[in-house]
């Protein structure tokens, strides 16, 4: 049996998504900017997909900018907004963001004179909205906070965070802009862009059974960004480059499947997670790093005394694919910044695996995986004595 448990890394493309994309590779392959019929077909597909995604997110179509994926969306939001300011300012983010948020911010602080505050998180991976309130200063221009963390699945209290930002914006001439990285959230955790007063939001295609190489950035009307890519002026001048029409169609179709099946998926994921955690906790010296109120599709768990990468290779032999919690470098264990931020020691981080679930998994697959994990953990502990 094959059990893919690394859906937080990437997901297989859904057959329906593949079918929707297919004609746009070779039949309706035109360049949306071309004046002829083929161009018009492609352009029309693009418009429809944009309209559909806008509906799904309850925003306006002209607020959707297609990008090459989550990384570009996050970079465009942060660098694009920072570069549109006439002088360097202050950015607030959290210690557990994805590198595609943290690294553009490091670049701004290291090379462009910006200041940044990285908010700490507690052991459940959540920031204290009070910390956020205290971090806001007169020169704060941007706050970037992920909705669902990609390594432990913690969900931020966006309602409270939104209230803090709204309060700070009271009477401010230039409002602080609020960016949310929702790459791990879309399809699993509901959110309301207008209610939460979100100004920019990133989504990635391949995390929701769509293709790789496509994503979008929602940019609220009135927010000015500097493009990262200059050229033919596509995407309203914000993101030049011939539009990746087949991938856009794939993203829209994947989003449609995620939205229409939301209730059903959420129930399935919750049941899968409960079963998984229950079974894995039967293994001695096992601890769940993910908070109990975290997202249902991400489980970070550690088996004391094992090396996670060895466990991964044991499991791949049994057809089970999952991820390690810490990157192993050739001479030292380098703990992930997220696991460090929630207070795990390097040894604990090195013993951590991450399981990324999909609603398409069956209980039989979960049982098989749990059985194999238990056997492998026992075997490895026995070898290392």
């Amino acid at each position, binding site marked *: 049996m094959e059990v893919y448990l690394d859906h937080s890394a990437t997901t297989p493309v859904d057959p329906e998504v593949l079918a929707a994309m297919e004609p746009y590779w070779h039949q309706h392959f035109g360049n949306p900017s071309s004046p002829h019929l083929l161009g018009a077909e492609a352009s029309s597909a693009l418009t429809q997909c944009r309209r559909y995604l806008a509906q799904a997110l309850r925003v306006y179509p002209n607020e959707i900018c297609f990008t090459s994926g989550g990384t570009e969306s996050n970079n465009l939001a942060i660098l694009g907004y920072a570069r549109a300011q006439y002088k360097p300012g202050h950015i607030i983010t959290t210690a557990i963001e994805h590198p595609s948020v943290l690294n553009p911010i490091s670049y701004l602080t290291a090379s462009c004179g910006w200041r940044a505050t990285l908010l700490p998180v507690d052991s459940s991976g959540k920031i204290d909205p009070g910390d956020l309130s205290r971090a806001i200063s007169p020169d704060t221009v941007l706050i970037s906070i992920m909705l669902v963390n990609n390594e432990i699945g913690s969900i931020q209290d966006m309602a409270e965070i939104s209230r803090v930002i709204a309060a700070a914006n009271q009477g401010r001439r230039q409002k602080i802009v609020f960016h949310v990285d929702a790459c791990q959230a879309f399809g699993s955790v509901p959110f309301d862009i207008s209610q939460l007063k979100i100004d920019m939001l990133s989504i990635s295609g391949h995390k929701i059974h769509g293709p790789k190489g496509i994503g979008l950035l929602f940019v609220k009307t009135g927010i000015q960004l500097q493009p990262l890519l200059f050229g033919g002026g596509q995407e309203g001048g914000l993101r030049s480059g011939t539009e990746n029409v087949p991938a856009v169609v794939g993203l829209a179709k994947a989003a449609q499947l995620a939205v229409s099946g939301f209730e059903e998926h959420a129930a399935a994921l919750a049941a899968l997670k409960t079963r998984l955690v229950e079974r894995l906790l039967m293994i001695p010296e096992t601890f769940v790093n993910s908070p109990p109120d975290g997202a249902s599709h991400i489980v970070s768990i550690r088996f004391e005394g094992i*090396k996670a*990468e*060895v466990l*991964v*290779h*044991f499991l*791949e*032999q049994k057809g089970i694919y999952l991820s390690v919690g810490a*990157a*192993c*470098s*050739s*001479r030292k264990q*380098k703990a992930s910044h997220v696991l460090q931020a929630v207070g795990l020691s390097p040894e604990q981080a090195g013993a951590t695996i991450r399981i990324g679930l999909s609603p398409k998994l069956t209980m039989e697959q979960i049982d098989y995986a749990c059985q194999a994990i238990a056997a492998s953990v026992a075997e490895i502990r026995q*070898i*290392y*004595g």
Partner: protein
Amino acid sequence: MYRTILVKYGEISLKGKNRSQFEDILIKNMSHALKGLDYQKISKAYGRIYIECGENWETIVRALKRVFGIVSLSPAVKVELDLEAIKEAALRLMQQRANTTFKVQARRPNKHFPIGSMAMNQEIGGHLLRNIPGLSVDVHHPETELNIEIRNEGAYLYHTTIPGPGGLPAGCAGKGLLLLSGGIDSPVAGYLSLKRGVTVEGLHFHSYPFTSERSRQKVIDLAHILADYTGQGRMRLWIAYFTEIQKALQKSKYPDLNITLMRRMMLRIATKLAQREGALALITGDSLGQVASQTMESLHVINAVTSIPVLRPLIGHDKQEIIDLARKIGTYETSILPYEDCCTVFVPKNPATKPRLEQVLAAEAQYDVDALVDEALAKTESVAVSSAVQIFS
């Protein structure tokens, strides 16, 4: 203007009766490096190799810069054996070099040509001084040296010499088995052996599932890079199944000696494989004192299991020197990819830096060493690494 590249190969022209054998290997390696490029022919004349090409001499030179045995490459103009033709060519060449100091350096292996080297120097030098304003002669430290070689087949003129990689033609010095770990050092040791003409085969110890498919792929990628220096773009890589030995060593009563025991097992397997495959020496990336297994005491105890030579080309290199070389040959970026290897997954907390042979023999007494070695060898697979791209085939 240049239609010929003159190749000098220093060291091998000293090799007496074997010379033509060395030259043939060098020419074979050069032809391989030039595969798919446009040139008329490669020919050898006493102490020189000539390549006749078109206007693409820069492409040819670039392709030859990785061929060991080449000391230097000079783009040259070839003219017939006629003083006026030589004068005219000299003028054309030196016109690019107005306002420099120069001297003419003529050689005349072809003694049938009536003008001697000294007379030729003066004749051509005078001609250039009369016709190119701004030139002046400096016989001791000229900025430009115009070389003229009078040979049977014609006269060659050149003033630019591009250094080659030196060394001996790959494949002229017998076979050696390189212990290739995936780290920074061993590929460099392989490169330096290739540079001295060794036919290098790689041997990697794979401990799947304790190490990953990626760490295996990384070693194959390193072998791909080394294959560019083997003269024929190919390299044999052996992948030994080391898992059972690793598991057995984890049960050792002397965990501090594990690295020593592991290295001794590796050398035993390598020795047997070398004997089977006709390799005359083992090659390792050891650098004296760098890590616990590379102290003199460790090398002594580890080396005791083999009776064939173990070449350690990096023994006197500092880490930074090794890194600089790894960058130069292009293996560094692959070597530092963070995949676990056998040393990281099984490294003891306090590896012994001064193991003693009696201790080690006592620690090995709990194992059936021969059986473990034979099993690893029996499960060793061979990978033919070549420069071909596989994704499309």
